[in-house]
């Protein structure tokens, strides 16, 4: 099948806007010669799925010149520059997070301001420092001032330390979120490893914590439990590094029987609400077209005998 034939087919995830709030790209200084292949694959798969916007981050040099989860200031800036370049090359479908390492607090704050000035629409925190550490407070405060959500890498239930990362879980992030009620936090990848059922009660009473459903994990029951804990209004769709699991979860949400407005909330509305207004390309137009189609369908069905 020709590529243009495939892209002309209906999106696999159905019509309407779709925001992937947890994506990554590689670059020429990340130490792998095939770095372009996964980037191209992500965009091609995004077209087939029907992703309107990929909101993505680069974690420094991806371990090439400093550790993935403990990137040096130089690599943090270099990675953000690469991510901003990708956004500039793909203005219609890519937006970026500013990734920072809170251990270099001054650099982190300068980097957030620098990247926001150049068009970053969120902040990415990985596993450089425990989420409830006071070092993260000035970052959370700056995020609130700039109106940027914070996507925080989470290990669902931290039962031990793992090498090369200082992992946080839902309880850790919950403490930070409770200290900063004006900041929106995206708790990363409930399917990204660990016990997600530990996460849900840790954050269900924190309205500024949103759950991103990305990750390779596709456990049956995970989405049902997440919906019960925080409702569709606090779930945010994403893929991370396995896009087929992202698509499968969308199909599973349809089977669970979410109402149209709940599906729209998970697909794009929740993201549009917490990212800066107007920062997501194609969302306003896509939403208007989708709403018009829904209205027409409703009118037709109510007019039918």
């Amino acid at each position, binding site marked *: 099948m020709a590529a243009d034939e495939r892209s002309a087919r209906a999106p696999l995830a159905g019509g309407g806007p779709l925001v992937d709030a947890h994506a990554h790209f590689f670059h020429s200084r990340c130490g792998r010669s095939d770095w372009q292949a996964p980037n191209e694959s992500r965009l091609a798969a995004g077209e087939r799925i029907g992703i309107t916007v990929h909101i993505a981050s680069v974690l420094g040099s991806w371990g090439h010149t400093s550790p993935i989860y403990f990137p040096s200031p130089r690599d943090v800036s270099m990675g953000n520059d690469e991510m901003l370049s990708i956004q500039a090359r793909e203005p219609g479908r890519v937006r970026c997070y500013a990734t920072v390492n809170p251990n270099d607090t001054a650099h982190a704050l300068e980097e957030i301001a620098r990247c926001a000035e150049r068009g970053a629409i969120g902040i990415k925190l990985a596993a450089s420092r425990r989420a409830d550490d006071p070092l993260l407070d000035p970052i959370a405060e700056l995020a609130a001032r700039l109106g940027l959500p914070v996507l925080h890498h989470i290990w669902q239930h931290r039962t031990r330390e793992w090498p090369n990362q200082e992992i946080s879980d839902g309880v850790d992030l919950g403490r930070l979120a409770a200290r900063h009620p004006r900041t929106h936090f995206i708790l990363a990848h409930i399917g990204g490893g*660990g016990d997600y059922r530990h996460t849900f009660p840790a954050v269900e009473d924190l309205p500024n914590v949103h759950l991103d459903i990305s990750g390779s994990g596709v456990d049956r029951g995970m989405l049902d439990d997440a919906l019960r804990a925080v409702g569709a209004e606090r779930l945010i769709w994403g893929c991370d590094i396995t896009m*087929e699991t992202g*698509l499968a979860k969308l199909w599973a949400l349809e089977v669970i029987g979410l109402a149209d407005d709940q599906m729209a909330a998970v697909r794009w509305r929740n993201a549009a609400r917490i990212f800066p207004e107007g920062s997501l390309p194609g969302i306003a137009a896509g939403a208007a077209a989708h709403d018009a189609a829904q209205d027409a369908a409703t009118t037709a069905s109510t007019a039918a005998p």
Partner: protein
Amino acid sequence: MTIDANVFIGQYPFRYLPHPDPDVLVRVLEREGVEGAWVGHLPSAFYRDPYAGNDALFAALDPHAGRLHPVPAIHPGWPGWERYLREALRRGAVAIRAYPPQWGMGPHAGAMADLARACGDDGVPLVLTTRFEDPRQRHALDGAGDLSGAAIRAIARADARVRVLVTSAGRGLVEEVHWGLTPSERSRVWWDISWIWGPPSDDLAHLLRSVGADRFVYGSGWPLRLTQTPRANLALLPDDVIGLELASVANLQHESNTSN
């Protein structure tokens, strides 16, 4: 005809599974456009003696004969296992499941090779499970670990009639085993696609190109995992491999050496 070769019924000891029942499974298969399934009994993997689980499996699947095909478990370290194997085949088993890590059997367990040979003689494949859950979420009591490549290679080498289906393996294990066997040995090993990543790493596409589509069968891991995942994975394959036909589970069976 698509058959889901990696399906169970019954509960899992380390987390609650919603509705792991045959009636629900039939509806799920209909929804997914899958004509049938090879079905194991999940609790049996954790029984010291799995044979009571086999009785439960046959009884539960009986109303759905022709659609849900029983894959009972045989523990080759248990006295009389040969008799239980004959009984399972007489009752309609299409394959036999075994769980070496959960039963404390290492890569060089002679009993596992004996079971593989016996299955080969009877023309049915041996189904092995790499993992039930992501290693990052396992219960403190779940210390069995993943099935190793060494164990799979040892079973595949046990006899020229042995046929093995390995479920829930990722790219690393597939490649370790496939390229660690002779062409003849690897022609008797199949894999399900339930735990192989799609884009952007495109592990499944890579394996279809390098190892070959004829080595893979459709599988989901239900009721532990979403059934939509393999369908999504196949739909997102790149142009050069999309539409390649996976192996039919019928390929895994062969003429019996013995009469049942």
